[in-house]
């Protein structure tokens, strides 16, 4: 604090500090505290708020734990998000390895451009593209029927559609951290492994993957977090039978009209995501500073 004032002088330092404190207090801290408070209180008509029934309890969380459908959707959201992360990893790893170790500089700059351009495009639009592709009378069914792979159109919308759309949406968040990690691997290590007789799979399992561990962990954590908190893909690509936890939360706010339960659900989602992030980073010994790049 003293350094700040010494560096910028009283006026500027005070302005900087004020801006940062307003941000942290009013936009980061206060909303979360208020959400916690909301989550702990019952949903009451305005007249009874502050009255004898307005006491803090864990009822809203217990409701989630005991309501079969919501609990199932919550658990499904977790494992489906993990599945999204795993699938994205499988799709991205070979490309990342190729870009980091095998591509010529020319190929690399083209590849980087090709993977980055789609991600400048709105997530809603990208999901819309999948919506069109997967539509019942859409191009995918038409092509598959045309080449005789299927007899009748398939209803892709639902779990499969959501999965495909999400993997698509988060490729870059997986690809770049892994690419960065593998890129720092010395080529001679690969040559040494090959020279010592290791095959492709062993080289990856024993040399490349341990080296890229932090990047892989970062990519997986972020993909999981984004998937769990996603709303667009399940809303557009899902079906009534494939509801996502965020949709339940949305309903509490704008259809069910119980903000307190909604807050409790949102808090549960937040805690889940933070826990997954922090545990994974701790397990893989990744520093928070290295993550946010």
């Amino acid at each position, binding site marked *: 604090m003293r*350094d*700040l004032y010494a*560096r*910028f*002088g009283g006026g*500027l330092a005070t*302005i*900087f*500090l004020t*801006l*940062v404190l*307003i*941000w*942290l207090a009013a*936009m*980061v801290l206060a*909303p*979360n505290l*208020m*959400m916690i408070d909301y989550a702990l209180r019952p949903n009451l008509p305005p007249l009874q708020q502050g009255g004898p029934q307005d006491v803090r309890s864990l009822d809203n969380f217990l409701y989630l734990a005991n309501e079969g459908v919501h609990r199932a959707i919550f658990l499904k959201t977790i494992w489906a998000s993990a599945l999204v992360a795993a699938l994205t990893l499988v*799709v991205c790893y070979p490309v990342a390895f*190729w870009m980091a170790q095998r591509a010529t500089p020319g190929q690399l700059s083209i590849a980087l451009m*090709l993977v980055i*351009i*789609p991600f*400048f*495009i*709105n*997530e*809603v*639009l*990208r999901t*819309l*593209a*999948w*919506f*069109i*592709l997967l539509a019942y009378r*859409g*191009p995918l069914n*038409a*092509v598959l029927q045309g080449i005789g792979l299927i007899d009748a159109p398939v209803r892709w919308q639902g779990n499969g559609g959501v999965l495909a759309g999400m993997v698509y949406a988060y490729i870059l968040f997986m690809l770049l951290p892994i690419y960065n990690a593998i890129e720092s691997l010395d080529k001679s290590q690969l040559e040494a492994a090959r020279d010592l007789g290791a095959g492709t799979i062993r080289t990856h399992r024993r040399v490349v993957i341990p080296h890229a561990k932090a990047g892989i962990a970062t990519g997986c954590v972020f993909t999981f*977090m984004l998937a769990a*908190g996603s*709303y*667009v893909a399940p*809303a*557009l690509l899902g079906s009534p039978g494939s509801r996502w936890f*965020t949709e339940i*939360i*949305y309903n509490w*706010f704008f259809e069910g009209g119980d*903000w307190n339960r909604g807050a409790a659900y*949102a808090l549960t*989602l*937040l805690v889940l*995501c*933070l826990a997954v992030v922090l545990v994974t980073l701790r397990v893989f010994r990744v520093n*928070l500073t290295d993550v*946010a790049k």
Partner: protein
Amino acid sequence: MRPDRIFRGLFVLYLLAFVLYLFAPLLIMGVAAFNTSRFPTVIPWQGTTLDWFSAMWADAAMWQALWTSAIVAVLVVLVALPVGTAAALVLTTLHARARSFAYAVMVSPLLTPGVVIGISTLILWRQAGVGGGIALIVVAQTTFIICYVMLMVMARLQRFDRTQEEAALGLGASKLMVFRRILLPFLRPALLASGGLAILQSVENYNTTLFVRGFETPLTVFIATKVRTGLTPAVNALALVIIAATVIGAVAYEVARRRQVTRQPRS
């Protein structure tokens, strides 16, 4: 053929499939904008038309949505740039011990799901009697967009040689002048870049905005609503225009950045 030739062939196939996966959906979406079919698709092709572009152009609700998004984006930039820069300066000037804690707090919005940011903002401001609308969209979006600005400014600050500040002070400059003439010009590229990123993030945001929008309909909400209530290729036409604008913007930015780099050799 030797096995590794086969392997290499398969791998090239895989790379092509990957590129196809990346671009086929976008391509289909774009091309469908020119199909006369009422539902956006490319098969069957019922005839080529530009009508959907005029339909989109004539849609007053679309213009309203675009206007809303533009206002929000401008306001977000106006808030996020100063605060993000201040945060970066505070963080880099802070003592090492306090820094790692402050850093964790300051990047936490990036680790928070977008819907949660929207919800918590909505809840807090309801207490103050403020409902969803432009103001809340700006507040909710800046909460995490500030982090992006902060990280980009910090990355640039790491390359700043602080003896420049001392030299300027030694020549009689006030601290304000040092900031204005030395530090700010140095940060300019990062500020421009993060301004661009902030606009992009703001316009494209959906998860957070959905909860705090009130009765406003920004562009992303407009499109998502169209998908559910009545999708016509006019939406594809809009999507195509947005994609073109984004890609042109990104390329222009990249070109400008490279020119900047070549114009200023090392100091």
